[in-house]
Structures are given as C-alpha cells and as structure tokens.
C-alpha cells in the first residue's frame, strides 16, 4: 500500500510539471478536435504528432500521445450524437441512440451524460490499470524469449482475426508488416537487409513515414469530395438544455458501471479494444433492458453504457502495452514506437527502471480526463461550430502537418517521399479491402519477434519444441492455434447467416 502511495507521489510529481501539463492539454485538445472531426481518426492524429516526440522528453511525448488517444473517445461521441456521423469507429454506437435523442431535442442531455459516463468509465479503468499493471509486470519478469514470441503471435493473430473482413487478409497484412520491419540492419549479424541501394534505408523504414502514409494520406484521399455536413439545431446544446432528468440518472448509473466492466476487460485483450467493447456493451444493454423496443429511439442506456465501455477500454489497453511491452492495437503500437524512438526498451522492467515515466503517464490520465470534462461541457458551442468547417479547407491543412512533421525529424526529403510510397500502398490496400492496422502492428512487433524467435532458437539449440515445452508459451500458442482455426473455419459455418457486425469501416 505504502509503495502504491509512493508511486502515486512520483507520478504526480512528474505529471504536474508545467511542460507536462501543457502537453497533456495539447494532447486532449487535439484528441477532442480529431474525435469531433470526421475524416481524421486517432491513428492519423497520433501519427501526425509522432514526429514531435523526437524533440520531447519521452514522458512528455507519451503523455501527449496518450491524451490524443483517450481524447478522441470523448470527441467522437459529440459528432455521433449531433450529426449521426461517427467521428471515430468506437463511437459509431453512440449514433444509434444518441442521434434520435438529438432529434427529440435532447442532444444536450445526451452530450452531458456521455461526458459523465466517459469520465466514470475512464476513472475506474485507471484504478484497474494502477492495480494490475505492476502485478502483471512482476510476473512477466520470468518470461523467456519463447514466451514473448508466443505472446506476440497471439497478439497478432487476435488483432487480424477479430478485425473485420477476411482473417487471411488481416494475417497477410501482419506478415507484410513483419517483412517491412526487417528492412535495415540485422541486429545479430550487422548485415543491412532490403536497402536496395538507398543509404537512407540502412536504419530501416521510419515508423512515422509508414504510419502517416498508410493512415494519414489514405484517409485524406478517401474523404476528399465527401458530402457536406447537415445543419445542427444549436439551441439543443445550450447549457440549460443539458440538465438530465431524475429518470435519466436512475436509468444510467448501472449501465455505466456495466459498460465500464466490459470495457475494462476487452481493453486488455489483444485485438479487441474500444470499438468491440462498445458494440458488445450496447448489445448487452439491449438484451438486459425491460423494454428493448426503446433502443434505437433515444434510450439513454444505449448511449451511456457504450461510452463508458470505450473510454474504459482506452485506458486498460495500456496494461499489456506498458506491463509487457506488447501492444494490442495499432494505436498502442504507435505508443510503443514513441518509446523506442526515444531509446527506451518497453517491457516488464519499464516500471522499475522508469517509474517517473510509468506513474507520471498514469497520473496524467487523471488530469487529462479532468481537462476533458472541462473542455467538453462549457465549450460545446465551439465544437459544434468546428463540425461545420468544410473538408476542402481542412484536408490541405492536414497534409501540411503530415509533411512538416515528417520532414522535421531528419530534415530529409527521402522521409517525405516514404509518405508518398506508403500513401499509395495504403490506397491500394483500401481499394482491395485489406486492413491497414494489422500491418502497422506487424511492423512494430516484427523486429521484437525476430529477436525473441532467434534467441529462443539459439537457447534451444535449434529445437522448435521449445515453444511447446514451456508452460506459458505452450498455453499461449495453444490459444493462438485455436483462434487461428476458429477464424479459418468460422466463415464456412457462418456462410448462410447474415453478417454479424459491421462496426469497422
């Protein structure tokens, strides 16, 4: 217990320095902005600000990137409720009952209640993160290379299997990412691989160029020329119109707690994360409701529970990333990238070696969530006006930030050209309906996987059985295999039934 208070003190000390407070604010503000604006997702926003982390202290960098990540969850619901446009995929569910509420003139209530639900969900999840991450990290210190390799395999299989569309395509993109991750110097032999005569490729493909092209450019290209926004009735979002009734409150609090529980659980699993958590939470509330017919027509439970779930999942997603160094989603992979860019090797020893970073980041989550509460409610008029900025003014500005950000790292035009290459690849993948997130995950995990795989094989004298001899590795490999078989077989069984969920675009 005393240890925990000591850690909290260390964290607060780090988190409330003026620089960290400023960038925490920048992070949540940008997150809010990005969440509100359809056409830029959290991945794009985080990759846009990733270059800045080269110039920052790693703690500050992570606090800012983290702020973007959970800030988008708040902002996303605003666009979903007022315009029926999900600003992010995880807030798509908020459209279902939030938009009908707005049509009934109760948009203000919906916005206030989602903000409260988000805050409650996030707060509880942060406590869970504080409790579990150190325990898992301590346990993970005894993991060997084979165990790590198995865990990464599970993470990648889960991420591609659960993502929408064909599992083979998702896995294909994971492997493509792993291949791209092998470009550059081989750490064991020092040999440069796949540089094709370019000196710039000796250190590998830059994460920034890859992420900016794959997500930023591809997203901009497919959003240009989209339809214009619908007008919003501003009177429903005035302060007075926000006051929830007693009935709203009594209907909401249990669903908020249920949503938080579900979200916290799904956030920690690889491959699931906030979108799936919010869908499942909505489905659960509908199933449990006394009058399910109200759902889809402005039921407040259908708005608050998924919002609590996706915010909780946003926070607990940090557990595997920080405690094991294994990200469960593409966004978390970018966070991990920000650490490695700054020369910090992620893993279970992070917490003991960099307590300031770990606890400072967690304390910044509290501060950031408080900031979001303040940002959200009084400033709602500002966000609404922002929703009306036409995309044809916005997208060139996004491109400017993408290009300058990338160029600022090494003053290298080659890096900017990489955006073009990956932008083209990203568009080709969209055209052929290949998911991009697994590629990024594979790219970040690839080099770690190769290192652990080769070390495990070295220790076992070339015997592949090492992956099934060790209990941890064997269990994890077995789960991965089950998941793999299930995803290959499932499409053939489900063939006749209707498509289940169409959550991800």
């Amino acid at each position, binding site marked *: 217990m005393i240890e925990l208070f000591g850690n909290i003190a260390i964290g607060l000390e780090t988190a409330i320095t003026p620089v960290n407070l400023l960038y925490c604010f920048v992070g949540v503000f940008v997150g809010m902005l990005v969440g509100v604006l359809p056409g830029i997702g959290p991945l794009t926003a985080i990759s846009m600000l990733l270059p*800045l982390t080269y*110039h920052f202290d790693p703690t500050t960098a992570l606090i800012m990137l983290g702020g973007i990540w959970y800030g988008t969850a708040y902002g996303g619901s605003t666009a979903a409720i007022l315009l029926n446009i999900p600003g992010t995929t995880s807030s798509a569910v908020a459209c279902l009952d939030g938009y009908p509420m707005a049509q009934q003139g109760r948009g203000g209530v919906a916005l206030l209640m989602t903000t409260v639900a988000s805050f409650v969900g996030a707060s509880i999840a942060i406590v869970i993160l504080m409790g579990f991450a150190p325990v898992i990290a301590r346990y993970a210190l005894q993991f060997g290379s084979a165990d790590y390799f198995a865990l990464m395999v599970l993470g990648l299989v889960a991420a591609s299997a659960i993502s929408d569309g*064909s599992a*083979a*395509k998702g*896995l*294909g993109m994971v*492997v*493509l990412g*792993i*291949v791209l991750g*092998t470009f550059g110097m*081989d750490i*064991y*032999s020092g*040999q440069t*691989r*796949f540089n094709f005569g370019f000196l710039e490729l000796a250190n590998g493909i830059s994460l920034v160029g890859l992420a900016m092209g794959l997500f930023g*450019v591809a997203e*901009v*290209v*497919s959003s*240009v*020329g989209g339809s214009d926004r619908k007008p919003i009735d501003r009177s429903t979002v005035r302060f007075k119109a926000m006051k929830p009734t007693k009935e709203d409150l009594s209907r909401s609090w249990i669903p908020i707690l249920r949503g938080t529980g579900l979200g916290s659980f799904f956030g920690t699993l690889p491959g699931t994360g906030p979108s799936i958590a919010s869908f499942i939470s909505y489905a659960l509330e509908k199933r449990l409701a006394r009058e399910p017919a109200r759902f889809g027509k402005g039921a407040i439970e259908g708005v608050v529970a998924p919002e609590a779930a996706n915010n909780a999942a946003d926070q607990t997603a940090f557990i595997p990333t920080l405690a094991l160094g294994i990200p469960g989603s593409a966004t978390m992979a970018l966070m991990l990238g920000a650490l490695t860019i700054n020369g910090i090797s992620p893993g279970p020893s992070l917490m003991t070696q960099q307590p300031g970073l770990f606890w400072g980041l967690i304390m910044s989550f509290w501060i950031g969530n408080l900031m979001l509460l303040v940002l959200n409610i009084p400033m709602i008029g500002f966000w609404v006006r922002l929703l009306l900025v036409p*995309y*044809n*003014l916005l*997208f*060139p*500005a996004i*491109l*400017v930030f*993408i*290009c*300058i950000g990338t*160029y*600022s790292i090494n*003053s290298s*035009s080659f890096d*900017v*050209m990489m*955006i*073009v290459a990956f*932008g*083209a690849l990203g*568009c080709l993948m*969209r*055209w*052929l*309906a*290949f998911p991009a997130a697994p590629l990024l995950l594979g790219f970040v995990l690839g080099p770690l996987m*190769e290192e652990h*795989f*080769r070390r495990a*094989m*070295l220790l*076992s004298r*070339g015997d*592949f059985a090492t992956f099934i001899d060790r209990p941890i590795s064997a269990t994890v490999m077995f789960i991965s295999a089950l998941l793999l078989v299930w995803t290959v077989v499932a*499409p053939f069984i489900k063939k006749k039934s209707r498509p289940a969920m169409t959550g991800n675009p």
Partner: protein
Amino acid sequence: MIQDKRDFLGGMLLLAAGSAVALYASTHYPLGTAQRMGPGMFPFGAGVIMALLGILVIIPAFSRRDAAGWGKVPLRPLVFVLISIVCFALAIPRFGLAPAITILVLISSLGDRRFSIVNAIIVSVVMSVLSYIIFVLGLNLPFIMFRWAL
C-alpha cells in the same frame, strides 16, 4: 470462374509479394541453421507464410457469391494529393518552408471538385503563418522559411 475479382487480385499480389520476398532473402542473405539463424532466415520464412496466405485469399474468391466490390478510392484526390507531397519534398530544401507549404496546398486542393483558388491561397497563408508560430517559434525547430538554393 472467378467470382470475386477484388480478392483474386489482392491474393495474387500477396502471393507475388511473398514469393518475391522469400526469393530475394534466400538469394541475397545467408539463411544459417535453425540454431544459428542468418539474416535471411526470418524474412524468408515470413515471405513463405505471406505467399501461403495469398493462396488462402485466392481460393474462396472462386466460389464467393456475395462479392463486396472494390473499396472506394477516388482517383482524382489520390493523384493530386500524392503529387503535392512529392512537390513538397522537392521544394522544401530548395525554396524553404513557406513556398513548399503553398505548393502543397495549391496542388492538393486541386484534388477536390470544388476547387477555389481564393480558398487555397487563404489556407496556404494561414498554414505558413501557423507553421512558423508552432514549429519555429514554439518548438525551436531549425526551419528556414524562405531560401533560394537550386
């Protein structure tokens, strides 16, 4: 008979890319042994797996009824956006930040059907000033706003 042309093409590309990687890795870098793997082994394995996954994508494409069709990628924005970034990369070391931003904004704006030269000029001025404030004044990055170095 190919039912789903999109997945057929996608699978073929995956198969081709995987085979190319496996071939390139095994011919250019030593594979080593299972115990002491060379730099070529891991990429070779990944390439083989990628090719196999390509085949797994191709097979169902022959029988699928409800082909989903091609993903939506509008050609005009694609071309102008990519060209504008190439021009930015070429312009910035030669003319400095402000001209590079202007070129980027002007060309990329052409990607939208509702292109307006006035809007594009306003955006480029605003973005140049904003970038100066954020990157040069705020973050102290060594950017040169204007230069002439052909």
